[in-house]
């Protein structure tokens, strides 16, 4: 239902294909129609994803997928809003929006295609690139500590924090469906290969490391969640790291909660006259 035939602008073998597929399948598994879904994206290779899927699209500015998505959701709470972009877009240029979007806890799903590199601009380090990893620009290796989006989201109070993997689109589809169904801000950081520019985090590299969180993992337990969120290197956990019910923004904001979607409100100039009368 969400599939359209569109030639992509991605490189052969790119991890984005798996994520696109996972997203389509995740959406298909829900009781949603394309016109009820909006995908807000930024700029980058990942950010082209909504071009290849049947859903409304706001393909805005590099780094600004979150605020645009927030505006959309606030304007029309009936829409399912997915914010989708790359690691550079989401955690670099858009870092401030990420921090504050978690705090705002609006009911949106945030999918980050994390290829640990700036793909579209040809391979510079992103905030998640490993320390010492070399790129054309960082020829002596990256000198900053990588940012861990999962621990960051946890620290900021996110209620749904998960890690996906491009190469397992079934699991990814299920994760995405679960994130969309979650009421509040939900982050899925999705591990993705970039065969063109990231020669370190290859499919093989990932396959040697990733594993699924077992049923023993209790995503409601912050202590466990933290340990799993921090795990990186030899072993990398996949799945829902943390999940708990939270007070979603739209549910406790009076203007949103007490009204139909803002977009459906009637506009009558005369209704505002009483405010003017207070100036008499």
């Amino acid at each position, binding site marked *: 239902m969400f599939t359209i035939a569109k030639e992509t602008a991605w490189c052969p073998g790119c991890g984005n294909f798996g994520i696109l597929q996972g997203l389509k399948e995740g959406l298909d598994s829900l009781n949603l129609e394309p016109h009820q879904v909006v995908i807000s994206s930024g700029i980058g290779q990942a950010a082209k994803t909504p071009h290849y899927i049947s859903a409304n699209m706001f*393909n805005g500015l590099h780094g600004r997928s979150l605020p645009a998505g927030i505006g959309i959701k606030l304007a029309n709470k009936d829409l399912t809003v997915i914010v989708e972009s790359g690691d550079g877009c989401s955690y670099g240029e858009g870092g401030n*929006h990420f921090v504050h979007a978690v705090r705002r806890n609006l009911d949106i799903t945030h999918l980050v295609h994390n290829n640990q590199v700036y793909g579209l601009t040809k391979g510079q380090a992103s905030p998640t690139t490993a320390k010492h990893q070399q790129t054309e620009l960082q020829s002596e290796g990256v000198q900053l500590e990588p940012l861990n989006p999962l621990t960051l989201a946890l620290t900021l109070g996110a209620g749904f924090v998960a890690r996906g993997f491009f190469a397992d689109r079934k699991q990814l589809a299920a994760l995405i469906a679960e994130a969309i169904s979650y009421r509040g801000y939900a982050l899925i950081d999705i591990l993705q290969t970039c065969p063109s520019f990231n020669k370190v985090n290859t499919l093989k590299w990932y396959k040697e490391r990733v594993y699924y969180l077992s049923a023993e993992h209790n995503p409601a337990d912050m202590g466990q969640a933290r340990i799993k969120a921090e795990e990186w290197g030899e072993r990398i956990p996949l799945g829902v790291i943390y999940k708990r019910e939270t007070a979603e923004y739209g549910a406790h904001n009076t203007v949103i909660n007490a009204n139909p979607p*803002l977009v459906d409100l009637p506009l009558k100039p005369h*209704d505002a*006259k009483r*405010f003017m009368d207070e100036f008499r």
Partner: protein
Amino acid sequence: MDFTVLIGGAAGQGMDTLGMMLAKSLKTLGFHVFLHRDYMSRIRGGHNFVKVRFSNRPVLSHADEVTVIVALNAETIELHSGQLSEDGRVITLENGGKVPPNLQKRTIQLSSADIVERSGNKRVAGTAALSCVLKLFGLPLAALSDTIVTVFAGTTAVANETAAQMGYDAAETKFHAEAPAPWDNIFINGNEAVALGALAAGCKFYAGYPMTPATSIMTYLAKKANDAPILVEQAEDEIAAINMALGASYAGVRAMTGTSGGGFALMAEGVSLAGITETPLVIAVAQRPGPATGLPTRTEQSDLSFVVHAGHGEFPRLVMALRHPEDAFYQTARAFNLAEKYQIPVFLLTDQYLADYTQTVAPFDFARVSIERSLATAVQAGEYLRYELTDTGLSPRIVPGKFPGKLVYVDSDEHDEAGRITEAAAVRKSMVEKRQRKGAALHPELLEPEYIGCDEPKVLIVCWGSTYGPVREAVLALNQQNHAVGALVFGDIYPLPTKMLERYSRQASKLVNLEQNATGQLASLIRQHTGLACDHSLLKYDGRQWSKDEVIAALIKEVL
């Protein structure tokens, strides 16, 4: 009659409340009132003042000359006694400080200690000063009492009444102020008028980040949020604010953001996004002196060129300079219609002077506000084309989610009619031309500037925005002195409407731009659009608004 009362002191001493109480009392009495605010970028201390000008005829700006000074501290007298009219009076509270010998005869010293003792309240001495003012003008105390009742309750009200009586008894009437025939009016400032205009226009979403002098638009709207309703979102920064507003607009609500120069600089990329995605947006830019932080609480008109050119790439936009509170209301409402009709960003260019001054004006006529959403109500079969190529450049716009099977693709990259990314040269060309056509289609909408002055002006002033008030008063005064002066005050300013300018500039022998900036940005714009060069520039850039008196003096000295 035309009087001004200045109330001065340190930030935190309550000049604002006192000014409002006095102004409201005068309003109650039927006067035309103009309250001007001059304040520093700090919360306590320093020197702030308000000027309350009132008359039996309309007052459109502040005056230099002051009839009465209410000095809450010594500095006020030092700084302002030079502006006191010859027969002017000073009212001090004890802490009003030392009065210079030459003023002592004209000073009424109220003892705040006495007032505090008698009223039993530490914060009512100012009220005594106000009633003292009323008495000086021979006005009834009742007007102040009415105001007290609306502002204070219980024992505080009683204490204020006591103080008011004390102040009233402390002076004798010196001036004759007669109110005009009763008239219906509201007492409102520029930012409140913008906010009301937005509410009238059905704005349902405002995202912003606090920045003086724009903040009070957001604060006002937030207070009405549940009632209106309107969602007011304080964003983490201005970049988020404009992108949220664009998202909301895309989703189909009328959306707005507002800020001042520095915050607007951060929005420039978003403006460009509005341009290419053809997302309607209303953006209030409340100017203050720059560059950078500059003088945060003062006034200037130095962001015109920036706003006109802000954002990379080329796309149509509309910039309206707001001239006075009524203009602010109607233009704001109009801005929402035009933003949606042409699917463009529309700018409301205001400044600290207009944002903050409060004036008695005729109530706004809500029947004059119509809502034209320019949304497509039906869509053709087949794929929906958000950027369908049409003769006018305008494509049918639908709200996402409202038409099953129809999807709305918008893209910051160059795109085809469906909104999909493209690099094809021919498509690029057609999309650039489509956007240009929208700009051309916009021209007939432009409102010509307002002309003020005699029929055959020899000197033609061109100005814009908030200098409307001072210039209008100055021109009319000069006309009375038989100077053949006229002024064109631009409201719609970009694209620049040029018909009246061309007509009047042919008649006049001198073209003079009068602006609140250092480089003459309107003059540049005029030259760019018409080739006309101004013969003389009157520029002020110290952060204090041109007064009518300064306009008159400058014209007489340099031009007439």
